[in-house]
């Protein structure tokens, strides 16, 4: 039986880590019956998304819809699993995948599955903010947070995952869509890569998986220092030196190893109040098909995080002194 597994993201759920690992281990995957095709120049198959989603020129290929047809033609009649991955497939705005069209393009496979990793909304929103602020002016945080709450979207991606599920259902059946909990996967013994290998039917021993898991991509800047640097620098891009100096100032005020968050505690509470009911609705919809799936309500370490509103006068005066040297 031929299978196509389409990994649609979401963003900031270790998708780059999965894509980089699978790219480096194509031969190993093939030995286990999984095809991870090279399409375009990137490690992920973002070029396939360009059939519907506007992406930078480096992801362009001549005919992305034909590329989908070519995959079906090449592998649809066999008994291998084709795994393609691009978080851009879960984008909702300004352009999005025509899921019905995608379903038609991939009907040459015996079985088509969508796999989508979801994380708690606080982690998701923070990670998106961190990503957007790399070398770009992101705009005031307050406005972005307000838009994420009110519009349930951030940077064109769903924060209310019901919206994403609705979109996927425009092309695929509910029993074709499978969710992975990012929070549970990263805490699991074999890590998120181990969870994905299991999802696609690749059995590797623990040592092998551990080696694949090593070297996570995209290490983020310390969130709170990054936010403060961006807010101080707006409308210019925050310089890395400023982020580092703010990191040093924050570190002086906190016990070693304390993790920060961009949110204030009231913002975290508002996120919970807004999205916990929406997540529960999503779980009710998914339960008939995936009864074991759970979605974390808040980051697991939320009670131990250092929140933005905890920054006191001593911190600010210390920062003023530090920055004026």
């Amino acid at each position, binding site marked *: 039986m031929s299978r196509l597994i389409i990994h649609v993201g979401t963003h900031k759920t270790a998708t780059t880590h999965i894509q980089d690992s699978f790219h480096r281990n194509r031969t190993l995957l093939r030995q286990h019956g999984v095809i991870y095709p090279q399409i375009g120049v990137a490690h992920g198959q973002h070029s396939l998304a360009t059939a519907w989603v506007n992406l930078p020129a480096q992801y362009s290929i001549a005919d992305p819809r034909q590329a989908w047809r070519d995959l079906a033609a090449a592998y649809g009649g066999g008994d291998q699993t084709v795994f393609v991955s691009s978080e851009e497939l879960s984008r909702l705005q300004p352009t999005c995948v025509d899921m019905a069209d995608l379903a038609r393009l991939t009907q040459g496979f015996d079985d088509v599955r969508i796999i989508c990793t979801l994380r708690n909304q606080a982690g998701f929103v923070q990670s998106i903010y961190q990503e957007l602020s790399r070398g770009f002016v992101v705009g005031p945080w307050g406005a972005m947070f307000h838009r994420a709450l009110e519009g349930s979207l951030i940077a064109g991606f769903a924060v209310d995952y019901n919206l994403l599920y609705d979109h996927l259902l425009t092309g695929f059946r509910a029993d074709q869509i499978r969710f992975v909990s990012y929070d549970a996967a990263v805490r699991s013994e074999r890590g998120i890569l181990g969870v994905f290998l299991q999802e696609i039917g690749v059995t590797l021993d623990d040592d092998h998986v551990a080696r694949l898991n090593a070297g996570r991509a995209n290490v983020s800047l310390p969130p709170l220092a990054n936010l403060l640097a961006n807010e101080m620098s707006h409308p210019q891009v925050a310089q890395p030196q400023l982020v580092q100096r703010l990191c040093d100032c924050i570190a002086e005020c906190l016990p070693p190893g304390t993790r920060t968050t961009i949110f204030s505690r009231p913002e975290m509470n508002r996120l919970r109040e807004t999205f916990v009911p929406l997540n529960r609705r999503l779980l009710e919809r998914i339960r008939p098909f995936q009864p074991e799936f759970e979605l974390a309500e808040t980051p697991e370490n939320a009670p131990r995080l250092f929140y933005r509103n905890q920054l006191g006068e001593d911190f600010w005066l210390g920062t003023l002194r530090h920055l*004026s040297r």
Partner: protein
Amino acid sequence: MARLLLHIGAYTTAISYLQKLFHGNRQLLAEHGILYPDVGPNPAHHILVTPWIDTPAIGAHHYGSRSLVDRLLGKNPHEAFFDRFVRQHAHRKGTVLLSAEVFSRAKPQHVDMRDLAHRLAPFEDVRIVYTVRHQADYIQSIWLQLAVIGKAPRFEPFLEAALAQHLASGLWVDHGKVIDHVLTGFSPDQLVILDHEATRCHPDGVAGLFLDLMGSPLRFADLQDLEPREADVSPDPLATWLAHSTRWPSPSGAGLVRAFQTSLDHIRERHGRKRTTLYSRAQYRQIEETFAADNDKLAGWLQANQPGTTLSPPAAPDTLLFREDLTIADWIGLTRQVAMGRAKDGD
């Protein structure tokens, strides 16, 4: 014989403004029977405090030479100068107006009021004018003045010492102590207490009030006012405190104060345009509580000796922007000034 009006302070009650104003208009004042002598190196009369308070900044050449009689009497140059000054001015017609806030200083040295009264006896009539202001404003202003000249210590220990000792930078902040000290040489009917807030409300301002005190027909409008840059406008308290906290023990720099002030102008718009203060709410309450008894005593003295004059209370807390009212967004705006290198000293 001349009448004498001796203005002894307090510090930070527009006294510098008055000194510059009257000095600049001394010709006009003299034409209207008010003599504002031009003595010593400044527009005020600090040189006259020197028999009791060492003032090395005033060079020896200002005192002139002592007469043989002064030498034989054992007078030092400061005493000789003072007595010569009295001899030259006490016989004249009109009012002699003198102003030097140093007369109200407590430490490290203070004026011997008995000696002062004795030396001023040749004047027909001597009145001492002292302006009071509530300690919340007074202590803050003293610290701000020190910050402007680069001599302010950290604010918290300064305030703690003021609350414990009722002294700030050698000045009594319990005005009753100033009054008690003046009364060691003068009688209550020679003392005129003004309230700083009330003087600001006089239709002709503080200068007009002084002209009224001297019974002058001149009005403030008759005088040439100071240029804005001469007027010693008080710096924004919070901007000054922030600059001081940022750079202490190095000097703050006028550029940094200005940068914070610009930021605070925007911040105040978000806080109902309240005036800033460098206190926390707890400190503000503590000041009121600490000086409540002393101020009640002052009120009693004023009631008995100068009915109609009261010490104005400090600004209501809900009219002030306290340090703890600053939000994260406010602090980010303030820090941006330094982070983006917008504060340029020497501008």
